[in-house]
């Protein structure tokens, strides 16, 4: 291998990758095994104690449940919306329409969170205090435990669908026209056309979108923090909010790292499954 010039060619890249990826991961692993709580001075190796504490804490399971719900519903809704919008707009040349759809993407999550928070506010918000009561929806979205989860999902869908839409649109536009024409000649209805041609040929785009989505959803922080702070109670406290609380409110850096490791493993496994499932050579 050392004789192969390609090895030397790639060596710098490998080293850079090692430093950029492996070092922080290694550090995270080490931290997760350390007793490192600022309120109890002294940093030392503590085996799996952090993981034991984590797996024994009710808030971990609570947050895992919230994260799963949030991940599942936001992803499904987002996929459907992004797909419908991409299908509707694939032939449109209107730059204005497309820019309007993509706009939320350039709005930082913090601002998006604040905006939705004010819109949904049950006392003074345009939606929460005016529109919802007008159509007979008498629920205070942000202070009701399930309403709050629905609210952050709505906001997240609003702010992240455009990204998926762009991936889908690019994929759609990359499907050669011949495929559609062939299937139309074979007598396909619009629905059959979608499931015979469109969806299968978008398979890897869907996988990529899903991959981004899962990682994104598991790591969503600002939006939820700004909208509900994880509340009311712990109704919208996802794993990443729990991680933030563990590190910056509880000052338990080891515990937060342990949670980080768990999230990393979960994300990697989901990504792996998705890869195996969708990215296999067609």
């Amino acid at each position, binding site marked *: 291998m050392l004789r192969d010039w390609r090895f030397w060619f790639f060596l710098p890249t490998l080293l850079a990758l090692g430093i950029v990826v492996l070092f922080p991961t290694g550090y995270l692993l080490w931290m997760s095994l350390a007793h490192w709580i*600022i309120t109890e001075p002294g940093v030392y190796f503590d085996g799996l104690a952090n993981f034991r504490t984590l797996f024994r804490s009710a808030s971990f399971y609570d947050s895992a449940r919230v994260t799963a719900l949030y991940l599942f519903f936001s992803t499904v809704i987002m996929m459907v919306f992004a797909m419908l919008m991409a299908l509707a707009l694939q032939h449109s040349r209107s730059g204005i329409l497309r820019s309007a759809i993509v706009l939320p993407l350039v709005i930082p999550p913090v601002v998006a969170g604040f905006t939705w928070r004010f819109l949904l506010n*049950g006392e*003074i918000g345009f939606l929460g205090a005016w529109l919802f009561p007008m159509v007979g929806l008498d629920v*205070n979205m942000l202070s009701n435990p399930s309403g709050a989860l629905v609210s952050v999902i709505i906001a997240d869908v609003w702010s992240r669908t455009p990204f998926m839409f762009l991936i889908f649109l690019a994929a759609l536009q990359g499907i050669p026209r011949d495929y559609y024409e062939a299937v139309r000649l074979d007598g396909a209805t619009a629905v059959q056309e979608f499931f015979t041609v469109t969806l299968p040929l978008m398979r890897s785009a869907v996988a990529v979108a899903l991959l981004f989505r899962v990682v994104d959803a598991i790591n969503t922080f600002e939006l939820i923090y700004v909208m509900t702070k994880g*509340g009311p*109670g712990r*109704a919208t406290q996802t794993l990443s909010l729990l991680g933030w*609380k563990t590190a*910056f409110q509880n*000052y338990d850096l080891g515990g937060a790292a342990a949670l980080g490791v768990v999230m990393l493993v979960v994300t990697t496994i989901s990504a792996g499954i998705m890869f195996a499932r969708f990215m296999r050579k067609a």
Partner: protein
Amino acid sequence: MSIHFKQRALVAACVASFAASPALAQTEINVVGFGAGFAWADLFGATGAEKTQKLLDFEKEHDIVVNMEFADEDVARQKVLLDLVNGTGDYDLVMLGSDGAVQTFSAAGYLEALGPYLETAPDLFDPAKVYPPFLEANTVAGELYALPYYSFGAGAVYRKDLFDKYGISEFPKTTEEMATALQTLKDGFAADGITDVYPLTMRGAPGEEPSLDLNGFVYAYAGYPAWFEGGPTTPEEIKASKAQPIFTGDFKEGFSTFVNWSREYGPPGIAGHTWVDMMNLYAQGKAAILFPSAINAFAGIPSSEVPEVKEFSAFAPSPAGPSGKVVQSFWTFSVGVSAFSKNKQEAYEVLAFLTSEDVMRDFAEVIGWPYTTYPSIMHSPTLTDKWPTEMLDQIEASFYDADPHYFPYIPELTEFMDHIGTAASSAISGAQTIDEALDELQSWATERMDRAGYYK
């Protein structure tokens, strides 16, 4: 909690650093903080990225360059924590709150005790000239760790016109009278068909923020900081008596009152409300009383578009609970010297300057709220021109009435505040009953204290 500023809503993160460093020999002091254009606007200008003449004069006189780095509040807090944990000393001065940071960081040895420095710059900062409770709030185990920049005590701001309308002649002096008044207001609104004005606005969002007010209720009902048996407030006291958490005991009455008042008299979204919502609701004329963190009403009144809010808002001292102690809400926003700073003396000089009477007077002038850390400013035209003397006197009295240690000063403070606040939010939203929330809090606290080694 803490001072979040309005601009924050849109300014996601703003980091300003100064390239200018005139002479190499000068000491550079790095400060991290939040609220650009608000905090020390008299020194760093409206953008937080300038240097006013006043600051330049200070730098010249002391041969120090002050590098201010503003960031979004959460970002700033994280930067402070990470910098201290890693012991880099990159930041010489760090912003702190008396709701946990001062207690935790001092215990961890991250903050320099300021006692020995106080004599070194008496012309800039003289501890005898500021309200004592604000220093006390930054004092842990007898040592002063930070100087107050912005602080407040408890009180109520209420709408006199609405009180008059429903025949309440004066603001309640006890929580019992307060409950009656709230019910009167509620019945009155109901009878008049008013559905979008609420008797009370408080904050009930999860996390540490509402805890500041909620613990004020606990203190007023129990008569002491009722977290642990016997009411110890320092780690030493807790360890000595092996005092167990009493969140299902004496803590409960104040907690329940806070939750019940929120549910009965507060706005429907209160379980998610922070100081911003509290402020907005009051400013928009949708609440008759804002309590007990009166500061949040004063933050909203100047920009209110409801004439009655501007005309009929009045301040009242916080009512007393069954124990005779008043409901507390006390907080100070301060600045401390990092234990890892390489230029502690110069850092202290900058700190003394930043909290000096002169600078604080300009700050009071800029924001115009009836709060300050210096009695001399409180009674000067800076505030007396804007506010009735009687109100200023009452606010001042609330400072002296305050017991900054109305919750224990333990390193785990922020964590406890967070759990307490989240329990309240849960109970207010109905996700849990009061008993369920407190049982959970109690068992978590027992386990946590045990794990922290208090009962060894």
